[in-house]
């Protein structure tokens, strides 16, 4: 049962490439066909994903399923090992869903300078990299997928981004590559120091313990290797001192890029911690955990303060990501089953919620041609549906019980009350309880800030009366207008660039493609908020396997 369907993951990962191949032969001018083929490829991939969901054996979620282990590049001992367990499954599916939704949204929102062919192709390539990272069980394969993600995102920001796109895209690329430089050397050091015969994660994890027990691997070496990996992942997360690329990338990226970046790309880093760094080097993880916890807490508070100081809506949401990923990393740093489960949930929840917020921000920009908070006001009057959706997403983001955000944030804080107790068998001592309880208190202050900046944002933009600049353009005035909403949608893309002050076109409320793209995310936020067990039970077996090493 577990192995006989080994085609599933390979097809699921590489199917988008088939779409890219087909699209290559479609002329650029045939935009409709291009979009159709792109969306079809993404939908087919999602279809495989749903099949995976259905066939996944939830009773053995801690085991790698649909596993493939064949030779790939023998000379460097790298093998094509893919597999899916409870840790990867939700993120793997999330990446497919987000890609489809983003493509639907792009149907009439291709950002300037147009060229949907290239845009859709990049999204498909991005999907390959993201899905591949979540299923790779070989370090070299993981690294390759991890790096593939960089390029499409670089071009997405660089070509379709805002005014400062060159700076932002370069910064994004170089920061991530800087991190991966250390990560790659750490992977290789791990391979040679343990005398491994493959780069398989499970094999290396076993070898590390074996060598450590024999005394062939000192804790200094392990700490250095862990530091190298952690640097690579921390840049991607991003954790506090390495976060500066994120606000720039988010602010300059097109809406679609921001959504994918927030929903999936940031998770590659946290996923890397849980999948690779913790299980392979548990002793070193314990050494570094307090520091990671400290940086997470700094990130939570720092991110929140930065949010309070922002005047740009997208930049504010970007900094809120720094804070939210701080909660996720705090959960991971406790090294307990409780904390890591919370972190995993937090990843998915943050993906859905922040993705949603960026969608809203994109649509606001489309209508008002600005994201400056002080110029926006009274959205609830002018575009009530959009305003309500934004309110909903903001509530979810600040961790309102009953919505998905709560289950990522609250248990993560709680888990710091009781960090890992240690494991005598592996010579891992307990984490300092006092330290973590301090973290807990600071992190909970962070949630207050989160409520503060999100509500303040909502109050300034959605409540009140529209500013003079946009007065009389709202959807409320639209009722007398002869135009149907659909007609507006049709020429919306073309109007993207024309934001000369003084003659704004009428504002219109949420359009049909926006509804299709957003509805599943909104539904998922509610569903997982009401019934979090649906996801916890998928994570838990695999998480327990990891946390067992730390005695949790």
């Amino acid at each position: 049962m577990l192995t006989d369907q080994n085609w599933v993951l390979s097809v699921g990962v590489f199917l988008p490439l088939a779409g890219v191949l087909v699209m290559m032969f479609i002329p650029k001018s045939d935009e409709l066909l291009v979009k159709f083929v792109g969306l079809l490829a993404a939908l087919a991939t999602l279809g495989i994903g749903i099949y995976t969901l259905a066939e996944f054996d939830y009773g053995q979620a801690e085991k790698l399923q649909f596993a493939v282990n064949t030779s790939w590049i023998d000379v460097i001992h790298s093998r094509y090992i893919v597999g899916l367990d409870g840790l990867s499954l939700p993120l793997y599916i999330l990446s497919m869903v987000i890609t489809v939704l983003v493509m639907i949204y792009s149907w009439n929102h291709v950002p300037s300078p147009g060229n949907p062919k290239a845009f859709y192709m990049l999204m498909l390539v991005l999907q390959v990299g993201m899905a591949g990272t979540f299923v790779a069980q070989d370090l070299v394969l993981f690294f390759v997928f991890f790096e593939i993600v960089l390029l499409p995102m670089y071009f997405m920001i660089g070509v379709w981004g805002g005014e400062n796109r060159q700076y932002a895209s370069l910064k994004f690329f170089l920061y991530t590559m800087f991190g991966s430089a250390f990560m790659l050397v750490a992977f290789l050091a791990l391979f040679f120091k343990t005398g491994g015969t493959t780069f398989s994660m499970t094999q290396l994890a076993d070898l590390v313990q074996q060598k450590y027990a024999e005394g062939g691997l000192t804790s200094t070496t392990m700490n250095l290797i862990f530091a190298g990996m952690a640097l690579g992942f921390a840049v991607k997360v991003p954790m506090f001192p390495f976060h500066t690329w994120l606000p720039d990338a988010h602010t300059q990226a097109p809406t679609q890029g921001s959504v994918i970046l927030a929903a999936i790309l940031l998770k590659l880093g946290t996923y890397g911690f849980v999948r690779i760094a913790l299980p392979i080097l548990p002793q070193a993880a314990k050494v570094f955990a307090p520091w990671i916890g400290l940086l997470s807490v700094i990130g939570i508070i720092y991110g929140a303060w930065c949010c309070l100081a922002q005047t740009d809506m997208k930049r504010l949401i970007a900094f809120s990501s720094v804070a939210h990923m701080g909660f996720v990393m705090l959960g991971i740093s406790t090294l307990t089953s409780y904390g890591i489960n919370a972190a995993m949930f937090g990843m998915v929840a943050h993906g859905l919620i922040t993705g949603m917020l960026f969608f809203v921000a994109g649509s606001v920009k489309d209508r008002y041609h600005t994201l400056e908070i002080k110029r926006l006001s009274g959205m609830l009057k002018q575009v009530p549906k959009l305003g309500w959706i934004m309110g909903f997403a903001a509530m979810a983001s600040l961790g309102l019980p009953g919505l998905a955000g709560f289950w990522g944030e609250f248990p993560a804080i709680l888990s710091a009350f009781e960090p890992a107790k240690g494991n005598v068998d592996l010579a891992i001592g307990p984490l300092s309880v006092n330290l973590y309880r301090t973290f807990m208190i600071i992190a909970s202050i962070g949630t207050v800030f989160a409520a503060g900046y999100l509500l303040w944002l909502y109050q300034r933009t959605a409540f009140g009366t529209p500013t003079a600049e946009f007065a009389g353009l709202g959807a409320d005035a639209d009722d007398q207008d002869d135009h149907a909403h659909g007609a507006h949608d049709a020429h919306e893309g073309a109007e993207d660039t024309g934001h000369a002050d003084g003659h704004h076109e009428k504002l219109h409320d949420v359009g049909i493609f926006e509804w299709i793209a957003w509805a599943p995310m909104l539904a998922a936020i509610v569903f997982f908020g009401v019934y979090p067990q649906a996801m916890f039970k998928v994570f838990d077996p695999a998480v327990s396997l990891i946390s067992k090493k730390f005695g949790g």
Partner: protein
Amino acid sequence: MHLLLSPMQQTDKLISPSVNWGSLTPLLVLLGAGLVLLVGAALSARGWAKGLYATLTAAAAVAAGVLQFVLWNSTVHHGPKSLVGEALVVDGPSLFIGISICAALLLAALVTDDYLRREDIDSPEVYGLYLMAALGGLVMAASNDLIVLFLGLEVLSIALYVLAASHRKRIESQEAGLKYFILGGFSSAFFLYGVALVYGATGTTRLRGPESIKTALALTVETDKHRALLVVGVALLLVGLAFKVAAVPFHSWTPDVYQGAPTPVTGFMASAAKAAAFGALLRSVVLSMPELRDDWRPAIWVLAILTLVIGSTLAVVQTNVKRMLAYSSISHAGFILVGIEAAAHGGESGDRGIASVLFYVLTYAVLVSGTFAVSTLVGRSGDGAHGLDSYRGLGRQRPVLALALAVFLLAQAGVPLTSGFVAKFSVITAAADASSYAIAIIAMLAAVIGAFLYLRIIVSMFLEDGDAEGERVSIPFGTGAAIGISVAFTLVVGFFPGWLLELARDAATRLY
């Protein structure tokens, strides 16, 4: 050596060295083609038909390459062997580097044809010099004797001096030729002095095999007396070769010469000359003087780090693309030196190091040939438009060409699924295997700094709004073919690196 020494020994009969003509065919083909080209073209009254020079050169390159594959086959079956009284060898590394040089020659010939006609300076001499340079490179890579190595070095270098100056209408080209000649002359002198000192210390110039430097060094008792002499000699050899591979601090000629030389020649220099010089470095020092490695490995270590750091940081501040690529080629030399450093450790990790050097040399030769091929086209007539501005808007004007250049640049930056990534990966793996972590991390950081430079060019092509000033870039057939071959190779090796890695691994273990 053999011939000169024999008469003094007053033996009546000369034992003539057995010349294995069959194994010399790659060299003979290149030599023959060069002579036919020069004399044949001189004898015909009106010169040859359009494109015939380049066709002959390309055919010779292909033939020499194929012959080396045949030799490879026989090496696999009968083992590596030596020729002409142990002066030359036919073994894994020599054939691998030889094939790299032939590939570079083929690509250069294809690009040069269009270039010379565009610039209206078509002549057979350039091709003759290409063939001679390739011949010299092949000799360097296959030499088993320091004197023969020097011979190859000079044949290669002198041809390149003239090639650098071959665009007679551009003053920069003249300057490049002269500069290269004067500085190159210095480096040759250093090398030759090194040969003399090594000969003084060991009593032989032969590198490996019976009665060679390697065996002399193995009897350490004897060499201890002349150790200082030997060390100074090896240092001078390293200086000479470091100059040829453009390693810091012997790199100062590179930017000026790369910028001034005709663009296809620059591509040839960066690919073939670098390959040959690394082959020679491998053969003369790394493989022949393992006993002395404690003395010269630190030098390689320092060279590698300086080359990586200075090459990539100085590349970032350039605004002329040819100059940028010159510094980038310095930084790539640093990467290959990382592999050499790993090779210096000997044993299993040493083999890995040699293999990584061979792999890097071949993939880089193809990559850089392709890059300069695009640069040749963008230079437009006059070969002067090499500023970053000239690339602005290329993505819109010539999307396919821009895409090809993007592939080359990303590969040079080491992005996965390109040959460049696999090359960097194998070099770093070798370094990690040899526990040279410091150098591995510095190399990776240099790659990050370097990535900035490649992205700058990509930004110019795709992201900046170009008003496409100047004439439209035209893509003639030959250059287009060269670019196509390079792109295909880069991507195929990027996606399926296994076979080539295995080939390099094989070559590294089939040593004479």
